[in-house]
């Protein structure tokens, strides 16, 4: 369900751009943050907002790494597996996360909280190994620190759930 207000807001955003397409990434990101992922419905909405066909939206959506075209958990954990983090032991972190969350890369944990995705360099190479949960970066990870972070995130999720 995409509220009309959001649609109108996005239409205004599109109108402000030089061309319809210019705002495509913004529109998709907004819809994604609203829905959690870019559902088919969101694609249809984006197409309508941008004046493109659904396929043309899909062309863009499937291109970008951070547009999710599959359902994700409440938090998406991006674990950097690029060279700097790799040399600092990101493989172990990823393995720990897989074991902790009980998922394979790309999967969502059973409680629907976390989706584990390996990702390209997060630009935090000085602090490797690195992961990003939502928009928050965590560096210098160790297994204990990851456990703490997950715990904190879980708590935050639980509180936001209860507040809703």
């Amino acid at each position, binding site marked *: 369900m995409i509220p009309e207000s959001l649609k109108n807001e996005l239409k205004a955003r599109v109108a402000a751009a030089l061309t319809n397409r210019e705002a495509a990434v913004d529109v998709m990101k907004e819809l994604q943050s609203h829905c959690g992922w870019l559902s*088919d419905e969101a*694609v249809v909405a984006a197409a309508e907002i941008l004046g*493109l*066909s*659904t*396929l*043309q939206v899909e062309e863009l959506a*499937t*291109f970008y790494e951070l547009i999710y075209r599959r359902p994700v958990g409440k938090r998406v954990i991006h674990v950097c597996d690029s060279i700097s983090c790799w040399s600092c032991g990101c493989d172990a972190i990823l393995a720990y996360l897989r074991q902790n969350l009980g998922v394979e890369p790309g999967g969502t944990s059973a409680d629907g909280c976390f989706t584990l995705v390996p990702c390209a360099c997060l630009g935090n190479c000085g602090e490797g190994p690195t992961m990003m949960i939502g928009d928050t970066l965590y560096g210098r990870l160790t297994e204990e620190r990851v456990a703490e972070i997950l715990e904190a995130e879980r708590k935050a999720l639980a509180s936001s759930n209860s507040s809703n």
Partner: protein
Amino acid sequence: MPKLVIDTIELEVPAGTLILEAARSVGIMIPHFCYHPALGNAGACRVCAVKLIDGPVKGIQMSCMTPVQEGMVVSTTDADAVAMRRHVIEWLMINHPHDCPVCDEGGECLLQDYTIAAGHGTRRYQGKKRTHSNQYLGEHVQHEMNRCIQCYRCVRFYQDFAGGTDLGVMGRASTIYYGRFCEGSLESPFSGNLPDLCPTGVYTDKAARFRARYWDYDMAPSLCPHCSLGCATIPAARYRELLKIMARRNDAVNGWFLCDRGRFADHGVNSPERPRTPLLDGRETTWDEALAVLATRIGELFVSHGPGSLAVVGSPRLTLEGNYQAALLAEFLQAGALCYFVERDEAAAASAVVSLLTGDTAVSLAEVEQADCIALVECDLREQGPMLLLAVRQAWRKGAKIFLVGEGSPREQTDSVSLETLRVPTLADIPLADYSTPLVIATPSGSGTADIETAVTAGAKLVFPLSGPNTFAAALLTREHRATSLAEALASGTIKGLLAFEADLPEELLSGISLLAVADRFPSAAMIKSDVFLPTTAWVEMDGTFINHEGRAQRFRKVMNPGLPIKGLDPALHPPRVHRLDAPGGEPRPAWRIIADLAERLGAEQLVEPLSGRWEFLRDLDPEGEGERIL
């Protein structure tokens, strides 16, 4: 004009020509997947690598991305270039499913050819192959993504060239996928070109799926009989069955492409209902008897009603040969009327078209693409000539303004090729004088041509999408032989006999006719009512000439012999085991031949060559050429 050397051949080509095109012009074929003459270059496949040995640029370059420059020395056979091409083939074959035996493209597959040419034989990649799921793309196009080599030809045609919006490229890196958002029929009216364009078997023609191989096809240069544009086609037949129609390149008319209607409508050639034997009063008979009886009855008609009581009817879908012979027959018999059109309006519209179109005003489809302002006046090109729509889109891509004039011009037609249009109430509202090459596309009509005449004085060129493949010729013959419309002829009341050749006779006009002879290839009401019915060949079964909307005479060649498709004879699909000399159902004859045979029985001389007199110059027309403008 830069001069360069390609493989020891010195040549001079216009600036801006790509090395690949320059090489092609001297007969050197550099392999290419993503480059297509109509779509231009993309630089995606990298298989057209050549080595520049000397000149302003050196080293390995993609010949489709490099415009020629003065002093270039190009080697297509250099070891490095060959190795590069071999590697590209190896890369492309990494994920290929190796299913050529069950692939319809096998035999006409660029990838197959180049793989063999590159000598790629051993597999050095040990990983697993990537696979894709297919999509249902409608009843005409079969999708098989595993074979894809990601050359981007399909999307570049579909979205850029033809303005389709429902087929595109998804994913990135090695997940590139060409398809639709969700399964469903392709919406573009030009989607049928995908099988032609695809260098491998990703898109194949569903109608001809698993029917034959390229080398088994009966093929000949032919034309599309669907509308008046006269697009060049190559029908492919096997075992007397028309399997598919492919586009043939004709730079003056359709370029490289064909619309879906022209491609997928088989016009009942294979139809089991198609009449294939002469009928005499509704019963099957032989040609001899049918013609003899017809000749006798014409004589009887003349005795009882006088020679003026017979009308000879040609039609806009009859070949020039047939129509011209019909005129000669009418002259020979002193027939009361010669008709090419049934309705009065039609005839009037056609004659208006012929009078408006001159060598100055008529333009070809290729010239449509050069227009900078196009007005669509009261026409729906989706019906009247889809390829015209594609040409309009190309003009629009080059910056032309497109106007929709009048209520009869629906916006949906331009939407189908993603055009931006402006709507104006009348033609006069368009400032034609502001443009250098304005163009008016209008449905012909007998009345109200004043607007168009004004536009012509303002410098506009004209395109009239006509009703049939040979309407232009019918109109010309109407003028030259002072023919009338059938409705007018019958209104006089003296006509008691009709000799109709491939004409669509409305039933209400046939009352009061005492002799009705019909030659046609469709089963029609007129056929049932006819006294003598003579089956004619379809266009793929004969040689002939059509004159298209701009007055371009084009020759088409016989593709296959008439006759029932072999698979139609036996429900078990077995072809006959017994040999016979004649094809069952192979009796239809070209209309002009029927006319000539009839005339011979009525005392005329034997006819060998149907085009004579004014049309004699068309005899040697090259069917593979661009045709000849007769205006």
